[in-house]
């Protein structure tokens, strides 16, 4: 199957303030993603799993065209047009109505967007005239979803969309994702819990320290790592890195577990 989006050796490093320099504007390379190879196929759900700081959000932003990095088979403009993006926990606020807020985002797209239909799809039609300040977190997640669905996207990328949702809303979200996937739309969803994605994702990519440690179906990953069927993210990372679960402390992100690599491949 021809992948909808192919990532080959995608690398991006954040620029952070260099306090070792006397220049206040001096920046140096910080954390990021390194040599990521992934394929996003039509109608599939890809789960990005990793602990905090693994690079899930950076990878997602790169896919959406928010970071200008190379290694994609589709241009940045194409990705901004055909990849719908739902960031993590957007706090929609202000005195604009739901409809006006979505209309102002729709105004940023080149094609016509049926705002009423979109509001109906995400179940906000009864709150269409409410001001943003009066929305609950669940409603705000729906607003973000409405923005991700604008312009008939081929891929929808969601950054930890299940966070802050009650179980019913989580089920509604997963049902909607399955519906979208059955229509041929690819979905990329990140989570720091394997259990969130277990029944949903067709493929999983395990990220840690900005690198994809392993990817494939959950069964494939577990059998390759010789893990039980109920193994979680910690056991997966331990199996790949060779450390024992008992040795894990709060410095899980330390460089000795998986060294940071420069874009060339050599260790820092």
């Amino acid at each position: 199957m021809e992948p909808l989006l192919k990532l080959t050796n995608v690398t991006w490093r954040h620029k952070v303030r260099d306090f070792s320099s006397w220049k206040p504007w001096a920046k140096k390379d910080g954390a990021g993603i390194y040599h990521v190879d992934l394929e996003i196929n039509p109608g599939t759900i890809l789960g990005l799993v990793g602990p905090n700081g693994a690079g899930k959000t950076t990878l997602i932003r790169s896919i959406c065209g928010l970071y200008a990095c190379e290694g994609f088979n589709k241009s940045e403009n194409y990705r901004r047009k055909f990849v719908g993006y739902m960031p993590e926990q957007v706090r929609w606020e202000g005195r604009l109505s739901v409809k006006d807020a979505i209309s102002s985002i729709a105004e940023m797209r080149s094609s016509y967007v049926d705002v009423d239909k979109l509001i109906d799809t995400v179940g906000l039609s009864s709150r269409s005239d409410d001001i943003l300040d009066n929305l609950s977190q669940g409603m705000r997640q729906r607003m973000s979803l409405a923005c991700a669905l604008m312009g008939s996207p081929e891929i929808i990328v969601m950054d930890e969309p299940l966070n802050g949702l009650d179980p019913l809303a989580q089920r509604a979200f997963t049902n909607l994702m399955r519906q979208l996937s059955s229509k041929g739309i690819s979905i990329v969803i990140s989570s720091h819990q394997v259990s969130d994605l277990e029944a949903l994702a067709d493929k999983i990519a395990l990220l840690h320290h900005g690198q994809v440690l392993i990817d494939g179906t959950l069964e494939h990953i577990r059998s390759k790592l010789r893990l039980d069927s109920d193994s979680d993210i910690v056991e997966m990372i331990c199996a790949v890195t060779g450390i024992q679960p008992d040795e894990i402390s709060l410095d899980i992100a330390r460089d000795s577990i998986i060294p940071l690599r420069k874009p060339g491949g050599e260790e820092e």
Partner: protein
Amino acid sequence: MSGANLGLLILKERISATRMMVIWPLLAIFILFSSWGLSDPKANLPADIVVDSAYDVMFTSTAFIIFSATLGAVLISFDGISRDRISGVLEVKLSQPMKRSTYARALVIGHWGAIFVPVTILNIMSLIVIWYRMGELPTIEEVFIHTLGTALLLLWYTTIQLLSSSLAKDMGSSIAIGIGAWMLFTLLWLIITTVVAGLSGIGVENLDSPEYVRIEGIMDLFSPNGVYHHLLEMPLDEIDRGISPIAIVASAIAWSLIPLQLFIMRIERLKP
């Protein structure tokens, strides 16, 4: 995908914001009351200021517009980018296919319009006040220069504030940068002018000396408030600070283009 349409939606959002409940009365008190007071034939003004025509009233009341309208521009625009950045909405907006430069222009149109509309409404009302009190109106040319000058002044402040807001990563620094820039040009510029005059060997004991008036005129070209006053002085024959109209227009163009271009460049490189 139109920047103007998005700008109108931003204008609508900003003009309906809660902070307008503070800005409207502030503008009304400064603009309308100054016109009422200055158009009083019995008014006894300090510093030998003579107000004997409708345009004189409009010109003198700009001291109050500079104070209130520019503060209004700061209050509307200081969190124009930083608020969306903190809430995460900026990520949604920047991931849309609209060109970043178009989005930047829409932001400027929306924020500028949200202060220009109330100021213009109040300026029109102040014309009625002047006509009621003095029985005369300024010429169309004078009204045009006053409106254009005010529009440009508000544009400059809006762009500077949006640029500051795009640099700030939290609300506190956004407010600090915004108020700091406003204070620099509104309150501190006189001190900077005096220091420059002193360093240039010009006596600052007499602020009416021709040398000081000239250096003040030159320094004003580097301040939005100063350029605003230069523009409004152009129809007044009795005021000549020795600055050529070409320099004033060039400075106005520079103030209109440079901060705007810097803001567009900043938005094009902005990471959420």
